[in-house]
């Protein structure tokens, strides 16, 4: 399914609302009556991409399911900043059990709906990258393999943020984390490690797999909406910059997500039953430096003793993605 990009109209569908579009053409987030599933008062850091991404996703899911959504949350920043006793920021039925079991708990919730013939109530599971690609991976894979009726959303901020920025299986090479320090001959996270869970999900041949970022709201919403129109196991992997962990300014969260995609480092695509069905093309390609430089986790690649050869390896990764996913189109028309 390709995202219906509204052509032109000043800002087209690049912005959230755009008064020049009819209300149906605007994003869910433009709706003054949007659910605000994750409401004010949560304790996420300033400019938290995960808080933003979660509201984007859940609001869209709620609209798609006429507000009948139950969310299951893995342990992690999203859970911690949203539900410290005595206050919760959630506005929908929400359950947190453990760090590594969100997919399985969601399976249980979905099973309960099935047994009660409540096919109007939809189930969404969500977790961070650690909770998804590492500790929760077995449950996730099991949920996929059984094709349970769950939309699982991974908010990927590329490290274990809630515990203080340790490396996860989704941490990119060269990135500094608390457990991959910028010291020694190969500073930061090592090359040749890590796993690509969207592709692993795709290998399960589940009904739907997609990646997205908080910078492309329309694309994200369209994917959630489409995912909600399907039954069975669905996986959405959303890149959510973390100002704290990435060492970036709180105002840069969206820009960084955009640059991750525009540089080719984070390919945005979707797939159905194991086949890639669409990619979001790069609109204005940028060299990886433009993405890396504003982030202190990559500071060791620049500065007084720069590491251009490491930057070149990262560029090579971006180039490979561009090649592999066909991210550049001669006829990007926007």
């Amino acid at each position, binding site marked *: 399914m390709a995202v219906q990009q509204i052509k032109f109209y000043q800002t087209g569908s690049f912005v959230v609302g755009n008064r020049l579009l009819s209300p149906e053409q605007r994003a869910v987030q433009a709706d003054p009556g949007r659910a605000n599933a994750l409401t004010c008062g949560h304790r996420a850091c300033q400019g938290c991409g995960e808080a933003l991404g979660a509201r984007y996703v859940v609001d869209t899911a709620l609209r798609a399911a006429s507000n009948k959504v139950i969310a299951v949350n893995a342990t992690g920043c999203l859970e911690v900043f949203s539900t410290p006793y005595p206050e919760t920021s959630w506005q929908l039925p929400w*359950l947190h059990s453990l760090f590594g079991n969100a997919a399985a708990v969601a399976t*249980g919730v979905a099973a309960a709906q*099935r047994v009660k013939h409540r096919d109007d109530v939809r189930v969404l599971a969500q977790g961070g990258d650690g909770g998804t690609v590492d500790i929760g991976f*077995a449950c996730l894979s099991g949920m996929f393999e059984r094709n349970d009726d769950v939309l699982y959303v991974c908010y990927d901020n590329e490290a274990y943020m809630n515990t203080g920025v340790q490396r996860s299986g989704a941490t990119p090479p060269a990135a500094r984390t608390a457990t991959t320090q910028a010291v020694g001959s190969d500073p930061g996270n090592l090359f040749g490690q890590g796993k690509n869970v969207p592709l692993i999900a795709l290998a399960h041949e589940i009904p739907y797999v997609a990646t997205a970022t908080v910078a492309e709201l329309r694309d994200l919403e369209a994917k959630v909406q489409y995912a909600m129109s399907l039954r069975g196991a669905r996986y959405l992997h959303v890149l959510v910059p973390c100002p704290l962990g990435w060492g970036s300014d709180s105002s840069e969260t969206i820009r960084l997500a955009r640059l991750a995609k525009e540089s080719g480092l984070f390919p945005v695509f979707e797939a159905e039953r194991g086949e890639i069905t669409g990619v979001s093309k790069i609109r204005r390609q940028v060299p990886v430096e433009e993405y890396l430089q504003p982030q202190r986790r990559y500071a060791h690649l620049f500065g007084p003793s720069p590491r251009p050869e490491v930057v070149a390896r990262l560029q090579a990764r971006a180039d490979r993605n561009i090649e592999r996913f066909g991210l550049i189109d001669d006829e990007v028309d926007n």
Partner: protein
Amino acid sequence: MSEQRELERSPNGRVEPGEHTRGPAAPRQPLYRQLEGSRGVAEAVARCRPEVVCAYPISPQTHIVEALSALVKSGELTPCEFINVESEFGAMSVAIGASAAGARAYTATASQGLLYMAEAVYNAAGLGLPIVMTVANRAIGAPINIWNDHSDSMSQRDSGWIQLYAEDNQEALDLHIQAFRLAEELSVPVMVCMDGFVLTHAYERLTVPSQQDVDAFLPPYTPRQVLDPADPVSIGAMVGPEAFTEVRYLAHVKQLQAERAIPQVAEDFAAAFGRDSGGLLHTYRCDDAETIVVALGSVLGTIKDTADDLREEGMRIGVVGLTSFRPFPADAIRAALSAARRVVIVERAFSTGIGGIVSADVWNATSGLRQRPAHGYTVIAGLGGRPITKASLRRLFVDAVADRLEPLTFLDLDRDLVDRELRRMGERRRSGPTAENLLRDIDGRGRL
């Protein structure tokens, strides 16, 4: 093994002096069949109409979930979702989700599987979800061992679950029916522990209550809290120092409530089904007993047989069968042991470095008695499937009555073997001086 025996017990689990035996209360004619324990339990669970059953195979639990799977697949148990999960952690997690969403959830496991799900076991209790789980008791490795002991369920002693131990298969079956009611009345998960192989794989004459009777006994599940779009709540908040103690205290109070509810439910059960099952504990020939043996699980049958024999020889010996280990029925234990001179606790698990697990609780319960038993012995028996024979028990009780027992005894321990091994270890060079020297000093009894 355990034939129909006359049990001296009261439904509320408290010893009521003068009441020796209680026969069937209701005149209904139960239909008895020769059934494997696992099959019986599966059928009983099915009568409880679980809506979500999730399981991951591990011996000796397999026959239970295989049977349930067949019942669901054939449509005999419906509506019910049978979910083949990827792990025990997944199994308990699915149960958590299902239960929180208002479905009656059941799973079963054992041994390594229970440990693998441990994090979720605690979580289910913390969240107050009335999940029922069978633990087909089995040892924990390494060394890997598929046979029966209680190390697995004992490891989850503090998880916040109610733990009920079945003496025989009929009780195992009955306890499951009571477990759902207890769990849902109290919003606490319940673990029904039955000895692996010894019970799960044993064929006995069993009666499985009719659907109608179970329905009458067990109302449909109305969850205390539920994930419902019509009435949204956030379940599973993070709680800091400001309220965590209170949360835990309330969990304790919940167990104390269970201590009252368990006998009540057992009484209701007896009234409904005409059979005594469950309760906190039961006493057997304790009235004038100088020596009381405390145990839980299937070993009680052999212990009672042995006690019968010794009674014939004039030994004043009785038995206390503990059904509820959590909550620990401290009052009932105190009452049961108040007149005994000597208590022998036979346990199928132990805490390395100290000894008995059940014993610790029993000693704790009796510590406040004005007339506490003069002698207490902990006997670790039947680890990893080693048979507990009448002969061994007889020797043990005779020694106990003569107060020739060590406070901590490992029944039928091959003394020569361990001595040899300890010597060998002592002679070998070790990596560090401490270990080497200490080993040299250890005598054959495992004491310094």
